[in-house]
């Protein structure tokens, strides 16, 4: 008889029969609200990944050339490399605090699907880090000599890309939950998985800069995001449970 403990617990029905149990939607909203509220009380933490993004983007003109016409050619690569690295930086506070003070454990023992709870946490994380990054990307792009017509495409692709990056990051963060100084290991785990996002995202950006249609890679980015939304929370929930044992 198979004991599919972890998967069972992860995929549990959100609604128990109990009349006073909140719906899955209410639970997700509660988690989202909680994480957003917590983040705004430590607002200085939110700025760090964005500052990092700006700093990394600045490195390239300084290291290569200040000429905008030449920067334009490497802009898509610089933007995406910076976005990837900044996302990694932001992963620190996804689960760590909750694991350390015992609140994550309480959620794992709440009788609610951990998958749903972690999805809500990841969504909050994206709203706090991925979305601001996506909004900053067009600004950084202008600084790299990108023409104005490319900005909507850049915004769209980085928005979609950061969704997948948050999801992948959630899996990585869940896997390395108990590990001290997990920074380098987390990068090693997450970056190879993030390569498709990088490739499609950078291509979409490149096409946008050249003024060509970027629908195809954008669709692929969306597909990755959807794929991630279905699978990443499952893997993250399994990893969290293992690490809480």
């Amino acid at each position: 008889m198979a004991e599919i403990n972890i998967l069972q617990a992860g995929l549990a029905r959100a609604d128990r029969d109990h009349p006073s149990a909140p719906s899955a939607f209410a639970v997700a909203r509660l988690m989202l609200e909680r994480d957003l509220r917590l983040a705004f009380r430590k607002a200085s933490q939110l700025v760090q990944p964005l500052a990092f993004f700006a700093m990394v983007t600045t490195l390239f003109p300084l290291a290569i050339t200040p000429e905008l016409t030449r920067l334009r050619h490497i802009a898509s690569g610089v933007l995406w490399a910076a976005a990837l690295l900044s996302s990694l930086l932001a992963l620190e506070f996804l689960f760590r605090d909750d694991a350390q003070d015992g609140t994550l454990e309480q959620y794992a023992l709440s009788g609610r699907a951990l998958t749903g709870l972690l999805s809500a946490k990841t969504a909050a994380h994206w709203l706090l880090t991925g979305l601001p990054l996506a909004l900053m990307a067009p600004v950084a792009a202008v600084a790299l000599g990108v023409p104005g017509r490319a900005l909507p495409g850049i915004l769209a692709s980085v928005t979609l890309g950061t969704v997948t990056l948050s999801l992948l990051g959630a899996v990585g963060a869940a896997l390395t939950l108990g590990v001290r100084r997990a920074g380098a290991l987390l990068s090693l785990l997450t970056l190879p998985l993030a390569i498709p996002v990088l490739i499609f995202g950078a291509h979409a950006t490149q096409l946008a800069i050249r003024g060509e249609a970027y629908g195809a890679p954008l669709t692929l980015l969306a597909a990755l995001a959807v794929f991630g939304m279905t699978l990443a929370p499952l893997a993250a929930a399994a990893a969290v449970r293992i690490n809480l044992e």
Partner: protein
Amino acid sequence: MAWTWFHRLASPPYLYRTARRLTPWFAWPAALLILAGLIGGLWLAPPDYQQGDAYRIMYVHAPSAWLSLMVYTIMAVAGGIGLIWRMKAAHALAAAAAPIGASFTLATLVTGSLWGKPMWGTYWQWDPRLTSELLLFFLYLGYMGLRAAFEDLQRADRVSAVLAVVGVINVPIIHYSVVWWNSLHQGPSVMYLGKPTMPPSMLVPLLMMFLGFTLFFAAVLMVRLRAEVLIRERRAHWVEEEIGA
């Protein structure tokens, strides 16, 4: 929660003894096939009309590449089985396989690089196969790094199993995105194996090498598997009997 009997093979002492019995059955044919394949490939097979003798590195490169991928898949499947049915034997298999797979990946990269020199004139090109292989190498390193980060062996087993499953699902996606990326930029030509027909004098040694390498992997796996089983079972009675007082 009593130990579930999945298969006789799940029993560690049975697995240990079977592995020991099977090792010579894998090792000797492996040695013979590899020897025969090398003789056939390096000496008997005719030189290629395009590449001359340089193509012969394919006899090591291609089997290594195939195994690097196959071993990762085995690792992921074993990890998944270990997770779902809580089988230490499956986790032992995954742990045993990982460094072997990583070595094959490294061998693929090195031989690919050596092959590249006569083919392209440089030791490295961002061709889709080599790039995918490099990313696969990072996946292996991540897996082994994650394992090493945990002191508790059981937790290391289970967390790395989740990573392996996530990784194996992503490998096709990563590979597809790399191929796509490469096709955009008209990268260097695909390596020798893209050729539709191969004369038997070339093909037969190649097949012998494939089979020989696979058996070689199996033999080394058996040896490492026994060590991994012992580590996990060191408290059990049968281990004391086996090792001898």
